[in-house]
């Protein structure tokens, strides 16, 4: 699906990362490891075509990523380390906005089930600015279910989550891989899941 060949990124003559080769196929979980500031987030942004690599090429389904962006974005969900929810809206309103923006076909009962599983159902009508950091993170991760796409690119998805939620998310990752999805993530916590490949930065 996604292939990177010797991609490197330099900023003001400073090396961010160099010669990264990666092949992400279906049912694969790839974990990027490294200390803070080692270039993991920049690498993810390069994969999303947000940052142009200094050298190297990225392919999506055998074509140059740049020439196949439309199809690529139809298959990718990105969860960043930031909170993208609108703080003045309620949790439910945020979900409604995301569903509309991503043209999601997900059914209401499926959303309800996931909200209950993540202990967010009772907070549906609470404004996002009243939620805790962990609840905000869970709300972000809900976009994985709403978007329902093949490739998940996740930047620190487990930060601020309690053990129970990390287990639920780990189970969701496994289900996704069993459905021929793939995941590339950065994390300082190792989830209890089968990681196909680890890349050190």
């Amino acid at each position, binding site marked *: 699906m996604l292939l990177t060949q010797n991609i490197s990124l330099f900023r003001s003559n400073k090396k961010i990362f160099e010669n990264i080769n990666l092949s992400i196929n279906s049912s694969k979980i790839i974990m990027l490891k490294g200390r803070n500031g080692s270039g993991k987030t920049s690498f993810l942004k390069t994969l999303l075509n947000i940052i142009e690599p200094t050298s190297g090429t990225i392919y999506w389904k055998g074509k140059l990523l740049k020439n196949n962006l439309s199809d690529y*974005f139809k298959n990718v969900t990105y969860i960043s380390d930031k909170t*993208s929810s*609108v703080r003045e809206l309620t949790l439910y309103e945020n979900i409604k*906005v995301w569903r509309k*923006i*991503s043209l999601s076909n997900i059914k209401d009962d499926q959303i309800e089930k996931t909200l209950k599983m993540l202990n967010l159902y009772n907070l549906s009508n609470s404004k996002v600015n009243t939620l805790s950091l962990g609840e905000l993170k869970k709300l972000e991760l809900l976009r994985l279910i709403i978007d329902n796409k093949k490739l998940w690119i996740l930047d620190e998805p487990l930060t601020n989550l309690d053990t129970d939620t990390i287990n639920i998310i780990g189970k969701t990752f496994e289900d996704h891989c069993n459905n021929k999805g793939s995941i590339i993530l950065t994390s300082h916590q190792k989830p209890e899941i089968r990681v196909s490949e680890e890349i050190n930065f």
Partner: protein
Amino acid sequence: MSLLKKIINFYYREYKLYLSGFHDILTNISFFFISIFIFIFSVGPSNEQLSLLGIGIIWTLLLLSSTLSLRKFYQDDFESGNIVLLYINGFSLELISLLKTFSHFFFVQLPFLLSIPLASILLNIPFEKIYTLILSFLIGSAILSSLGSISSSMNLLNRKNYLLGSVIVILLSIPVIIFSVGIIDQNENFNSLVSILVGILMITFAINPWASGACLKIAIENNQ
């Protein structure tokens, strides 16, 4: 069809955002009216003087009021990573700039349209001039939204100095003020002045998506 649906859904999101920040719109309009009162108190109660200066005062205050909202143009969505999410959801940065400009025009500038008749009465502007004032505002405010988009996206590149964007908008809007105020006082050259204003609108409208899109791209790249 899918793009059209996405654009409609984008405006649903913008509507929700502006509705949740409705107090900002009210603050802008309050600023506009309070400033008019300050002008009235400082110029004095002479009807002739107010009538003479009224249109200039309204345009100056409209410009200042609209610059108040510039910081929110891209800032919130940029900092929360929503610009990137929209990009990944199939909105090019140029399209985001264009759609944001329209929503700024609808949700920030158009509420002033309702304020103009009341402001005109307060400043003793003749009734027959209100129509041309509204026309000049409709064209001029669309230009200000386009300029606002460019300067706000430039602000993302220079986040230490937020006032720079407002200064750029005020400088670039000098021709808009000249022609917009000129329309109201000119009877003979009315059509040509409207054409010039529409021309400026077309130029800013054509430049805006590319300039703002480029600034957004650099800002996203730099925000690693």
